[in-house]
Structure formats: structure tokens, C-alpha cells
């Protein structure tokens, strides 16, 4: 194949070919949208938006909350994303503090619940829906192991749950972080940490993603997963023998939100997406997955979704506090529980 050709010539040819194949660009207005939405939400959201906005195409970049936030921060000097659609509000606050977001008041944003938008005018971000920490409890495995059903966070400290609980690592998972921040806010900082100290004794392992503990509970790998309420409902509908429990003390929650990235070359299309993401139509999409949405008028019954979700949400949830203290909380958490090197079984 490379007989009778010069060696450097062949290298050059190969490199040139790669280069050529890389520069073939597309047409149309393509928005690069960074998101931490669950995978099954991407296709319906994209379809619904594109149907209303012909000429604009969404290209998703999806990962869990920590990864998307890290990626955006890493690209700070040369941002690749046009819009962030579906990222934790506390992460967007960190980006906003770094001056990375373009404030914009979407059409109809004034109709949304006040707690679901940035307090500034125009807002740097606008909320979509809320998700919260829930306990997924595998009834089949619990039966075998004679484990009682927990109803509160305090219950999880019972000695019989030793090594039976999985929860997300707050450093990587938005769900893990909202749970931790929820405990610190409702119990107070000192009591919150001492609660987690004792919980840590019962935790078998900390997962990277927020939905995984519930899926592990659904598969019986560990009977109890601290996870997302929506994942619980979804797994139960798929046939998993689990109960989805909202702790009686109230649960930590987080908001998914939309923001435009400062420096985007496609501001008009980005604004169109921001407008749509705040619309009633968009909220009707969100409600197919999460019961608590930004739009006050939009509600729907989801099969197996825990009852009274909105009532269980911690009323005093302070995102500003959570965003401002994120670094310190995660460093403390890492110091206390990250060193746990022996897995408990």
C-alpha cells in the first residue's frame, strides 16, 4: 500500500485527509445545547421545540450535572455551548458568578412561579421543573432480609440498614448535592453533618450519578437507594419491586433551569429556545416526567409518582446559599467520607 511513496509524504497525506474530513461543516441554525436532563427526556423535548421552531436544530451534549458544569467551566474562555437547557440552578448560579451567562427575559417568564426564576432582571436563568431526593426501597429484597420500610431520613440511621444503602456522591451528582444541602439546611449545619456521619456507617457505596442508586435498588443489588423521585416512579412502572418514599421531614430539591451562554454566535436562535423553554407548551412536556413544574397551571398525574411531592419539598430551600457554599460543603464531605476505602457489605 505504501510502497514507493516517501514516508513523510504518506504522513502528510494521512494528516491532510483527516483535516479534510474534519472541516466539512453543516448548514441550518444548529444550537449546541448542554444538558443534564435524563436521556429519555431529550428526544421528546427536541421534537416538540423543533416542531414549533423550524430552521433551528438542537444538538445535545448530555452528561450528569457535575460533568456538564465542569465542561462549561473548562470551556469558559472559549465557550462551545449556545444554550444550557436542563441544568441544576445551583450550577447555573456558579456559571453566572463567573460571568458566563447572558441575562435574558424570555417571553412569558412573568407567568412562571416567582421561585422558579433568577431574582435579577433580566434573569440569568429561568427554571423549568423541580426534582427531589427520594428513597427507593426494594420490597422483595427487604422481605428476604427482614428490613422494615423506612419513612423518614432518621429511619435510615437504624442499625439494621447497615451496608444496605446506596446514595449518589454529591461531588458528581446534582441529586447527591441537593440531598446533602437539604439535610444541612433543614437540620442545621452541625446536626446535618452528624446525621451524615451516622448515615455514612450504613451506606454501602456512593455512586457517580443520581439516578443509579434507585436503579440499583430496583435491581435488588442494594435494597435502599437515595435517589430521584422521578427515577423511582419510572422504575416502578417498568416492573421493579420498589416503593418510592418521600421522607417525612421534608426533602431537599433542586431546580432544572435554562440559560443562554454569553458569547454565543447564535443569539437569536438561543433566545427562541429560551422563550420556548419557559412556555406553557414546554412545561407540558416537563410535566410528563416531573410533577412540579415552573408553570403554575401545568399539572399531570404520573403513574407511581409519590403523592404530595410539592408539599414534601423543603420550603426554605435556599439555592443562593447552596451555590455559595458548594465548594466548602463538597470539600468537607470529601474529607469526612471520601477516605472510606473499605467497602462495606
Amino acid at each position, binding site marked *: 500500500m*505504501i510502497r514507493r511513496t516517501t514516508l513523510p509524504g504518506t504522513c502528510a497525506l494521512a494528516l491532510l485527509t483527516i483535516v479534510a*474530513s474534519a472541516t466539512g461543516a453543516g448548514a441550518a441554525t444548529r444550537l449546541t445545547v448542554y444538558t443534564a436532563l435524563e*436521556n429519555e427526556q431529550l428526544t421528546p423535548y427536541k421534537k416538540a421545540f423543533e416542531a414549533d421552531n423550524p430552521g433551528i436544530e438542537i*444538538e445535545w451534549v448530555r452528561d450528569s450535572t457535575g460533568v456538564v458544569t465542569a*465542561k462549561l467551566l473548562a470551556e469558559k474562555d472559549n465557550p462551545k455551548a449556545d444554550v444550557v437547557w436542563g441544568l441544576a440552578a445551583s450550577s447555573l448560579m456558579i456559571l453566572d458568578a463567573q460571568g458566563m451567562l447572558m441575562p435574558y427575559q424570555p417571553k412569558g417568564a412573568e407567568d412562571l412561579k416567582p421561585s422558579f426564576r433568577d431574582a435579577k432582571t433580566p434573569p440569568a436563568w429561568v427554571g423549568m421543573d423541580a426534582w427531589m431526593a427520594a428513597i427507593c426501597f426494594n420490597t422483595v429484597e427487604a422481605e428476604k432480609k427482614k428490613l422494615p420500610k423506612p419513612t423518614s431520613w432518621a429511619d435510615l440511621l437504624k442499625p439494621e440498614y447497615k451496608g444496605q444503602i446506596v446514595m449518589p456522591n454529591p461531588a458528581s451528582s446534582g441529586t447527591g448535592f441537593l440531598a446533602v444541602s437539604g439535610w444541612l439546611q433543614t437540620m442545621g449545619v452541625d446536626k446535618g453533618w452528624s446525621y451524615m456521619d451516622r448515615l455514612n456507617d450504613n451506606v454501602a457505596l456512593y455512586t457517580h450519578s443520581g439516578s443509579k442508586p434507585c436503579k440499583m435498588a430496583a435491581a435488588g443489588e442494594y435494597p435502599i437507594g437515595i435517589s430521584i423521585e422521578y427515577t423511582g416512579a419510572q422504575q416502578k412502572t417498568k416492573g421493579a419491586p420498589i416503593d418510592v418514599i418521600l421522607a417525612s421531614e421534608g426533602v431537599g430539591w433542586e431546580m432544572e433551569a435554562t440559560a443562554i451562554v454569553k458569547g454565543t454566535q447564535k443569539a437569536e436562535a438561543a433566545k427562541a429556545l429560551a422563550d420556548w423553554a419557559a412556555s406553557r407548551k414546554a412545561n407540558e412536556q416537563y410535566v410528563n416526567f416531573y410533577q412540579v413544574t415552573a408553570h403554575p397551571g401545568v399539572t399531570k398525574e404520573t403513574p407511581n409518582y409519590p403523592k404530595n411531592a410539592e408539599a414534601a419539598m423543603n420550603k426554605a430551600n435556599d439555592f443562593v446559599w447552596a451555590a455559595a457554599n458548594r465548594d466548602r460543603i463538597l470539600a468537607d464531605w470529601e474529607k469526612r467520607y471520601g477516605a472510606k476505602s473499605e*467497602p462495606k457489605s
Partner: protein
Amino acid sequence: MSMLKVAAPKPSFFTVRQSGRPVDPGERWLFGLGMGGIALFLALFVLLPLGTLFLRSVYDRDGAFVGLANFAAFLEAPTLVRSVVNSLTLSLLTTAVTVTLAFLYAFCLTRTHMAGKGLFRLLAQIPLLAPSLLPAIALVYLFGNKGILRGLLMGESIYGPIGIVMGEVFYAFPHAVMILTVALSTSDARLYEAAEALGAGAWKRFVTITLPGVRYGLISAIFVVFTLVVTDFGVPKVIGGSTNMLATDVYKQVVGLQNFGMGAVVGIVLLLPAVLAFVADWFGQRRQMAQLSARSVPFQPRVNPVGDRLAVLFCALVGGLLLGLLGVAGFASIVTFWPYNLTPTLANYDFAEFDAAGWSSYANSLTLAFWTALTGTVIVFAGAWLVERAPGRAAMKGGVRLLAILPLAVPGMVLGLAYIFFFNAPWNPLGWLYHGMAILVLATVAHFYTVSHLTAVTALKQLDAEFEAVSASLKVPVWSTFLRVTVPLCLPAILDIAIYFFVNAMTTVSAVVFLYAPETKPASVAVLNMDDAGEVAGAAAMAMMIVLTSAAVRALHALLSRALQARTQAWRRH
């Protein structure tokens, strides 16, 4: 930019040949440029990004210069120091197990007359076909809390050191076998005949001829395995439980804590084995003598009924375990709802259900793998040849050699992160590469440069330098010797390298996870995303697609190799 410079010598090459002048000056100039091109490639895609990473390690998150504060913080964090201990002990343990098994396996393949060598050769490659997440997923199905063979662990948990070592042995095994097979496959039968004539027993021949002969390959294998394991994050990520390793710490620092400075620091700590590997390579290189001189007689294993049967037994056991683990992953991919509903289904292959990219990520992987194999093989073999065979300054060669070894110790996460800092920097004229397929290809070539380089070097070292000396005295241009003698003689190794690149490009996760764009997302990243989200069945299904593709390519390679063996390797037999 680099291709323009590399292309420059082309006209002069023809003038030199046509004018029939003495070959030396023109050649030297050409080699200098070739070497410069390789050095430039490695500098742009390994050294400079890493340099940016080093810079980053002395800045805090807000971009303020903090000196060595990040390093001090590293040493003060008990978690991270613990990770160093975990990484070292588990990697050493894995290396000992892997290299021992791989050596025996490679020995059976090359030095016995056992049946089914072709099959065992293929079996040994199984782990290469899959992302490192796959053995971990399979181990969970086998030994997890609901695992099929849970009882075998006698109450110990698979989530932790046991799972990590088992998964890593699976993952690293073929890499060691590949190097050791190349090292063991060429030896001079005259040495063995002489030893036998002098009355040396089998053991003595093994210790005095075989072991010294493969010493260089053995050292390479040890370092390759150690650094592979120390830097792998796929296995500990899936099955490590709360056992932290340095590679997963990089991930945590960067992804979770968004602490790029600290991620960079941990990455730099992980670079230390590269320095060790270089020192070892340098020493090995000093001591290594060409095994195959122009007068060599290829070694031909003799029939030994007992030994050959033991060899088959051993290889069947090891190969069976490798195949078994793959089988479990295949099983995982067709189960409806593990472990409560075991009805077989193909629903898990409907990837759009778990991942927005659906099947398109699979197509992306094919493109990525093709280009990586083509570009990587050309660059690596040319580079190895320039370093080992072409005239040139020793300092330059040493530099290129160090650069070629460096990528092995760079965890994919770190390389990916370094690429973001380097290629996404506003001042970088190469910024247009960012977010295209090209950067994935180049990152993958750089990431897997070292093992391919070592394979090429090992193959080249076994050819006597007299080939070049004779050509020179006959006034045959050195590149002519390269294309007409060296390349054909090394074709099996070259094909191995191409396939190694292809399959690794199919399976790599870490190098590309920070670099992929929506339209270039590879299948392996889809596996990671699905596993992360807890969609283990979907992840297993996509991993199986990667395995099946890689297996098909390997099958093609086996056929091609056989044809080549007949055409270009007959000299080894007679």
C-alpha cells in the same frame, strides 16, 4: 501546520534519487525532517497539552496563580494519599498476576507445539474488543449482591479491591500477551541447538537463553501493564465501590469538585510511572542485542506430548475465563429486567430508549476507528523506525523516545482535559480542531501511541542492523530498504498495530469523554453514559456491539495475517 513541513522534503527525495549522488547528505536531511515531523506531532498532541495542564496545576479555579498550593493540598488530603497507596498496591498486584499469566500464555503460543494456537491467539484478544467498563459490568452480574456466583466470594464484596484486580487483569491481559508474543516469537534456534549440544537442560536453556532474550519485552510488558492499570478508570469506576484510585480521583476532582487545578495535580502524580518507564526502556535498550541477525535460524518448537497438553489446558482455562466474562456481558444485554425478569429480549439494543444519540454513536465509532487505525499506524511505525533505524542525533532520538512513552502514563481523562485547556484556548491557532472528528482521532492516536510504538520497536529491534549496513554499502537508499525489507518483515507487527488502534478507538472512553461533540459522540462514551445513568443493560448491549464489531475486524485481520505470513514471513521457517 505540521503536514506542510513534513511534505516539504518530497521533491528533494526525487532529486536525490534521480541525480544518483551519494545518498548520505540528502538522506540525513530527510531523516532530520521526518524526525522533526514526529517530534512536532508528539509535541503538539502530547507535550504541549500536558504543559498547559502543568500550568493549570499552579492556578486556582479563579485563574489566580497559587504556586504549589494545589500540590501541598494534595499531600495534606488523607483521601488522596490513601488513593496513592491503593493505586500502587492494586496495580502492583494486578501487574504480577497479569504478566505471569501473559508470559505463560505467550510462551505456550510461541514455544510449544500445542494444538489450536490460532484459536488461543484470538481468545487472548477478547478483552481488547471491549471497553474496560465491560468486565466490570460482567463481574457485577457474576459476583454482585444478586450475582450468579456470589457464593464463591465467601462473603467478600466484589465492590472494592477484589473486583478491581479481577477486572484489571482481564483488561490488561492482552496488552501483555501482545508484547510478550512479539518478544518470544523471534529467537535464534542456533543458540538452543548449541546449548543442547553442550548438555544444558530445558530449565537451564529457559533461564539462560529464553529469559534473557525476552528481557526487554518483559520489562516493557511490566511497565505497560502497570501504567495501564494505574491509569485506568473504567474498572474502578464501575466496580471500585468506595476504594479510591488515583485515576478515579482525577475524575472526581474534575467532574465533581470542578477543581481543575487539583485534577491537574493528581494527573501529574500519575505521570510518574512514565518517567520510570522511560528509564527502564532506556536501560533495556542499552542492553538489548539484536536477536535476529542476517544469519539466524528461526526457532521451531518441537513436539512434546505432555508439555503441549499442559499448554492447551492452561490456555483453555485462561481463554475460557476471558470468553466466559464476555458471555456474561452478552447475557446481561439480552435480559429484560435483571434479576427479576430473565426473559430474553432485544429491547436493550434499541439505544434511543436509553440515550438520545441512539445508533448514531455506533456509526461515529466506526469512523473514528478507521481514521485512527490508518493515521496511527503510519505515524507510529514511521516514528519507531526513525528512532531505531535511521541516522540521527542521539539526543533527538532520546527526546522522541521519551515523548513516545509519555502517553502511556497519561490517563485518558487527563489527556482529554489537557486537550480542552490547550486546543480550546483562545490563543491557539489549532483551535479549529476542537469539537471535530479530527481531534478525537488525534487524541486517540496520541493516547494509544506508546504500546504501538513499543510493539514496533520490539519488532524492529529483532531485525539485524546489518540489513541497513548492507544496503548502505550497496548504495541502496535507506528508505528503499525500509519499504522493501523492513516494512514487509514487520508486516505482522504493523497489522497488529493497525488493529490495536482500530479496536482501542472503538473501546476508548476516557480520552474522548471531554472532547466529543454532539455529532461525533462515540459508542464507548454512550456505554459510559448509560452505565452512569444506571442503564446497565443498555450499556452492556452497546458494549456488545463494540465487541462484535471489533471481533469482526479481528477475524478479517486473522485471515489477512495468514495470507501475509505465507508471503512475507517464509524466511522465518527456512
